[in-house]
């Protein structure tokens, strides 16, 4: 967790230079990294950023899969009601 924070901190200037809407996307990526901190720490990479990157990729892929699932549901109920993620 500690090293993850330091890693995010190191990218602060990068974030600053991004447009507002891209900053939101940037923040989302780091949120993903934090969410997967447990598996990232199990990886014990010499460069923590590698683990953070992998965590981000996993989360993005998960979102893609989730969207595909919804899309499939929607086309199955073509003309029907919205599926919606049940929370």
């Amino acid at each position, binding site marked *: 967790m500690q090293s993850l924070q330091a890693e995010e901190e190191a990218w602060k200037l990068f974030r600053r230079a991004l447009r507002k809407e891209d900053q939101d996307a940037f*923040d*989302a990526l780091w*949120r993903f990294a*934090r969410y997967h901190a*447990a598996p990232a720490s199990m990886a*014990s990479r*010499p460069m923590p950023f590698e683990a953070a990157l992998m965590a981000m990729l996993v989360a993005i892929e998960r979102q893609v899969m989730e969207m595909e699932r919804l899309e499939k549901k929607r086309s199955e109920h073509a003309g029907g009601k919205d599926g919606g993620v049940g929370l």
Partner: protein
Amino acid sequence: MPVEKTEGWVFDAYPEREGMRIWIAGRDGRRHSVIDPWRPAFHLAGTTAQLKSAARILASLNYPTDTGWVEKQELFSGRMLTVLEVRVPVLERDALVKRLAGLQLPLYDADMHLVQAYHYERGHFPLALCLFEIEDGRLTAFELRDDPWAVDYELPVLSTMHLALSGSEICGRLDPNHAVRGRLVLTMEGRAYELEGGIDEQLESLVRRLREWDPDVITTEWGDSVLLPQLDQLAQEHRVHVDFSRDAQRGMAGRGERSFFTYGRTIYQGGARYLFGRWHLDVKNSFMLRETDTAGLFEIARIAKIPVQRAARCTIGTSLSSMQMAWAWKNGVLIPMDKQQAEDFRPATQLLIADKGGLVYEPEVGWHRNVAEFDFTSMYPEMMVQRNISPETVNCGCCPENVVPEIGHHLCRKRRGLVPSVLAPILEKRARYKALYKAGGSGAAVYKARADAHKWTLVCCFGYLGFKNARFGKIEAHECVTAWGREVLLRAKDAVERRGYHLLHALVDAIWISITPGADLEELRRAIEKEAECPLALEGVYEWIRYCPSKVDSLSGVPGRYFGAFKTGELKIRGIAARRHDTPELFKCLQREMLECLARVEAGADLRRLVPALLEIVEDYCLRIREGRVTGEELAITFNLSKSPEEYVHDTVSSLAAKQLAATGVVLHPGETVRYVITNADDKVKDWRSKPLALMENGLEYDVAKYLQLLDRAAREILDGLVPAPAKKIVAPSGDGLELPLVWD
């Protein structure tokens, strides 16, 4: 002289010129003071030249010593060593050890607390029931009629006198270091006596009462830091001789105060005032007393073999290391003087793998229904016992095949380690106490206190394994424990998911799982326990649970910040304002009241239907703040000093309050707390922004707008996610409400 046989309990012991002075609390109610002519032993090894120099020193002493060669085991290698055993008069040991240490030779068993060493060797312990044989004031023999591992044991009936100050309505609630002082009040057998007259008259009365009542125990509040030192000084000034101790030869012994940093907090510990033949227990300066009451304190004193007065004030680490030393002594293992075991060298990549703590899965932010929480019972101590993790069993020379997952250290299979040997009976005893208190009955409260005392020992044992100053610590052993802990949690995750459940949150040794009502949780529990190979208990099933978002990023969760209600209606609250030590009492009450309201929801019913009732509660508190129906106690913010007041560079309401108190002459140490009220947060005059509770004299003054803001924050912590986001302003303060952090530092 005839031999007198008497049955009683070991009450107190301390060194004297002729040996150990022991006080016996007789079953017949009498108190005996006897001498046990015991002499402590320590051991030395080293080269022939070193031993020759040592022999010269020993020959030059003007008191008798006994020396002889004995076989003892060296802990880390497991080898038998021939060492020189030296026995000396009890009061001479420390000076002699210091001289011998100058020779740079290995010394063993040489710096143990003398009373503890005495208990280890004699095999008894504080509050042990024995049959004593006494001849001419000397202890000639004893027979132990007690067992430290007994679950039920008889304790002596002790008389207790409580010593306190009165004279002000804030007595007992405020640190007297920070406020006005009052008169002496003595309480004995439920009756309170306020002493009359001037100081010398009060002192005379105290002397009379002490002689008349002869209490076994004196309890005080702030007796270590203020009351006893002050009374002692006053007695000297007024030339009144007060025998606080039963032993008239001895007065009071003291130990200085100290501040230290642990677990991210600065702790202040007041000095200590010890008595002889009588105990002084300061309820405000004893972690054990505060957490477990006397039942837990006595349990620890008995098991760790630490005198009660000392056990009340020492850290759990001290009692743990005493248990380890007792085990080592009993098993002929040499106890090193201080920590000599350095960390083994290894490449940086290996450090990276090993240096991790417990596994944490971030919670899924939001309100969840039907969640089961399972906890691994004493996970870390259980791992140490089960996997034989101990400083001397890690990376032994004989068992390279017994590898720890992930990190590559290996553990010995042949030699049972010191740490598991010490912990196994504690785990077992705690489990028995837990079963007893859960069964209810008349002794339940006592069993619970004793189980709690063991809980603290078990919580601490893990940290102690990696503590650099621990006598029996080794960082590699510490890493083995966390590695096995992670393995257990990963296995648990696999087991849960394989059965189609969803893991919502995991925190080192606890897991939260989404379930459907009516699921067979006992079957699930057994399955996880079997796969993870660690005892697992169902903490409970939540009707609802809320994982709070991070203050920085509202979409991220924070491990360990949640609140929920079990199906039984019982609440569990972690990490929110209601649990923080700095939160004003008023807001703690607000949050608790709101949560109790939510806990009354019917199974499956919509929580949002309770929002109007919640808002009514908030409105109530809002009116109380506006109309002044609050007390300074309720509004006080508790500030824990991390440094001395003058070292604070930035003026915050907290540091200003501390500085005001310091300006009145009160000495504040790092780790002490100051309680204050915000009087006018934006005042140009700094001292008018906040006021310490101790200086609050004429009427309460507080910043209404600021407290309304804080109320809003506290309410929102509960209401978030129930009221439509973004939450509309729940409390409308006069002027525009600024978001302010709850901690001003």
